[in-house]
């Protein structure tokens, strides 16, 4: 029997983006010995790509804002299938979490009276996003990283977790390998926090990096936790579409918040054409009002470009499908037009959107202060994920917690921009706090060498198949399948076909082979990632089939309307005793009266 290097922690946090770092900091501050596993180097997680800002009702720019409005906005954006308690905690606690970042050294843009500046964003009634130009995510991750490294957290960089380890029904650790030498490691822990982010790599066009293969989703599912709302995948309306090599790279919603408008090839501002009923009262009916809103006039309503992401994406797809798209299969996003409205517009754009300016200049030869960008939807975020207790973030498995994108509930059917960074902070903190508490109250569990040996043996199988199929090709085919068959517009026929093809891909994945040795071998990593990608892809397809309606991010061409039958249910995916994926519907918990009133008052 081989020996494995073993680490013992009170709390093991898997994932080192915003949620993981925040959880690690909190657990460590509570006195726990914390281990933090990063798939890449510390500080490189996808949180750095967040651009627009952190949503929190600080009311620094508009004193009418408060947690109730933020809560109502979040629920409306999520089409009321959100976990109401999470949305409530999030709205109430986000302001403190932002102020805490400032106490740890973050340097947000300022208001004229020296406080944290807030900007408008889609679906938020008032200017609510604390930000640093368009690099807020970098500011956040660096602040957490620099604060965290002085707390004595043990950081395990460039490690991949292959499986959670259980002692009966309790999660007692994790097993994985370190990239540099390819060696396996056992992490024993009294409590484990999953904070692994999203699933974007299941799709061909995505803003996500190679890391986002649904690891936390799949690890939790395999261990016996529930996944909820997996059908709700957010396609961000504005990703780059040209040149081909940059397709999918994110263009921040901040462009539209600063006054950017969407145009079709005829120069028509098409977003005015269809404004959803529940947003009509909040949306400008003329261009002038929209511009005044972006300029901070409190009596103006938002321009239709700042409607929720699900809606904007669908409008863009409609324009493209009906032949009114731009030459490279997108639509135009124009911020340069604001020079008609303000002096020094070019300087203003460069100041407010520096990384967008840089990104387009360098990657597409486009000067966004002078000409429009071409954009189209890109897979960005999954609202669905591991089901957790809203207060403690514990999953249905004892000792297993989840926070951030890989956990679910707060966003419902569609996430508002800016709510992700605040979600990471609020629930990262809560997960860390309650994981540390759990660790204090429980002793280390037993890890059986046998279960570890099985995982290690399976992980090494691709090396025995020198003539096996190239894992990169399997991944590419999977991404194309999900993009084409389980993308923005869905039908039963296409998804049934996808499920059939997923089974074939599963078989191919079992035959994948890698060449070379175990040290820093990205081919091996790609082969290992396939397992998780296939699990989340199946969950997305199955739950999307189950929800026979269109709501939020899920658009079914064969069921184009909302259906009362699905208005108050979540889809649940879990692993059955025979190893198959089981899907069921469960009613949402009943919302208490005081929250119903909050929603009613903010209609």
């Amino acid at each position, binding site marked *: 029997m081989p020996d494995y290097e073993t680490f013992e922690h009170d709390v093991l946090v898997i994932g080192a983006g915003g949620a993981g770092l925040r959880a690690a900091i909190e657990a460590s501050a509570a006195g726990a010995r914390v281990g933090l596993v990063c798939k890449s180097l510390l500080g490189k997680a996808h949180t750095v790509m967040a651009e627009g800002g952190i949503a929190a009702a600080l009311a620094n720019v508009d004193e009418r804002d408060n947690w109730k409005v933020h809560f109502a906005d979040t629920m409306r954006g999520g089409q009321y299938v959100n976990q109401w308690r999470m949305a409530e905690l999030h709205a109430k606690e986000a302001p403190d979490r932002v102020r805490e970042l400032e106490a740890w050294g973050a340097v947000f843009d300022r208001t004229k009276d*020296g406080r944290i500046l807030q900007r408008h964003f889609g679906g938020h009634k008032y200017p609510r996003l604390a930000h640093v130009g368009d690099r807020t995510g970098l500011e956040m991750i660096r602040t957490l990283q620099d604060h965290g490294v002085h707390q004595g957290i043990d950081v395990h960089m460039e490690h991949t977790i292959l499986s959670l380890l259980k002692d009966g029904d309790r999660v007692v650790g994790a097993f994985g390998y370190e990239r540099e030498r390819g060696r396996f490691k056992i992490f024993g822990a009294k409590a484990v926090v999953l904070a692994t982010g999203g699933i974007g790599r299941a799709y061909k066009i995505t803003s996500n990096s190679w890391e986002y293969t649904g690891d936390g989703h799949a690890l939790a599912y395999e261990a016996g936790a529930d996944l909820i709302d997996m059908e709700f995948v957010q396609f961000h309306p504005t990703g780059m579409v040209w040149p081909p090599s940059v397709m999918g790279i994110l263009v921040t919603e901040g462009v539209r918040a600063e006054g950017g408008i969407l145009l079709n090839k005829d120069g028509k501002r098409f977003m005015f054409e269809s404004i959803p009923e529940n947003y009509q009262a909040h949306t400008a009916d003329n261009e002038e009002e929209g511009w005044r809103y972006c300029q901070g006039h409190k009596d103006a309503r938002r321009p239709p470009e700042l409607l929720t992401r699900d809606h904007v994406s669908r409008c863009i797809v409609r324009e493209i499908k009906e032949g009114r798209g731009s030459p490279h299969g997108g639509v135009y996003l124009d911020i340069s037009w604001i020079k008609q409205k303000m002096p020094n517009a070019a300087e203003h754009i460069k100041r407010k959107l520096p990384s967008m300016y840089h*990104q387009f200049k360098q990657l597409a030869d486009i000067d966004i202060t002078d000409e429009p960008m071409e954009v189209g939807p890109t897979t960005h975020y999954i609202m669905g994920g591991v089901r957790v207790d809203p207060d403690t973030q514990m999953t249905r498995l004892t000792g297993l917690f989840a926070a951030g994108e890989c956990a679910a509930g707060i966003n419902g059917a569609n996430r508002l921009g800016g709510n992700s960074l605040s979600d990471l902070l609020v629930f990262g903190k809560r997960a860390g706090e309650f994981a540390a508490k759990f660790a204090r109250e429980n002793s280390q569990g037993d890890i059986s060498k046998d279960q570890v040996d099985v995982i290690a043996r399976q992980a090494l199988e691709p090396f025995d198949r020198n003539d096996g199929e190239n894992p990169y090709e399997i991944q590419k085919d999977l991404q194309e399948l999900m993009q084409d068959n389980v993308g923005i517009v869905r039908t039963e026929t296409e998804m049934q076909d996808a499920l059939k093809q997923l089974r074939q891909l599963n078989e191919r994945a079992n035959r994948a082979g890698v060449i070379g040795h175990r040290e820093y071998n990205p081919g091996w990593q790609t082969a290992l990632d396939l397992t998780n990608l296939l699990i989340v892809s199946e969950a997305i397809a199955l739950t999307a089939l189950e929800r026979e309606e269109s709501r939020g991010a899920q658009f079914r061409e064969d069921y184009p309307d909302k259906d009362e039958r699905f208005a108050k249910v979540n889809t649940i995916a879990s692993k059955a005793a025979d190893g198959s994926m089981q899907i069921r519907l469960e009613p949402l918990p009943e919302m208490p009266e005081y929250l119903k009133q909050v929603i009613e008052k903010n209609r």
Partner: protein
Amino acid sequence: MNVSFKIWRGDANGGVFRDYATECTEGMVVLDAVHDIQRTQAPDLACRWNCKAGKCGSCSAEVNGMPKLMCMTRLSELPLDKPVTIEPMKAFPVIKDLTTDVSWNFRVKKKVKPFKPRAPDAPDGTWRMWQEDIDRVQEFRKCIECFLCQDVCHVLRDHQMHDQFIGPRFLIHVAALEMHPLDTEDRIEELRNTQGIGYCNITKCCTKVCPESIQITDNGIIPLKERVVDDFYDPLGWFWRLLKKLLNR
């Protein structure tokens, strides 16, 4: 068009440039070519990357001898009539192929004294800062930790003085803390004594390679050098320092 590449393959024990070729399409960056080669010809070719948009600083390498982010280097900017060479950063030990052991950087950062804010300005526990006072700090905080400045700094690259000099990245980190309007910590003594700011002789190589265009030398290192001089070599400054020390005792 078909483009040729020479990519360094090897590990800590040595390596060689191997020849590859791949189709180059419009807008392609060096990282795209590396990915194509990985997918079709060399699945075990090691390289780091994440965001692919110049925001995470993972894919640092030397392209035709120049320290670059592979994701932001367009092939159309390079001469393609001869092979494009790609090799790992030279200031750090090689792990495999294009990946290097950059863990030294993380250890160095841990040794820099953390942010220590003054007491809050307002009863609700918040502070007031003015945009014009934080512009400079925000410039430094744009750093994506790609370590290209460390790679090109001759003190580290040629003289390998990693134990005596923290390098431009961390001088900028110190500058961001020292110039933070809320910070109350003093880091000047270790800048001179253990962090080796004196070794920098302002050749500005770091500034030239910074993908975030941070004016590392002019805006960061030179003002820090001035603070060191004021504190240690100006008699008044020296006296003030002594006084502060005595008062703090």
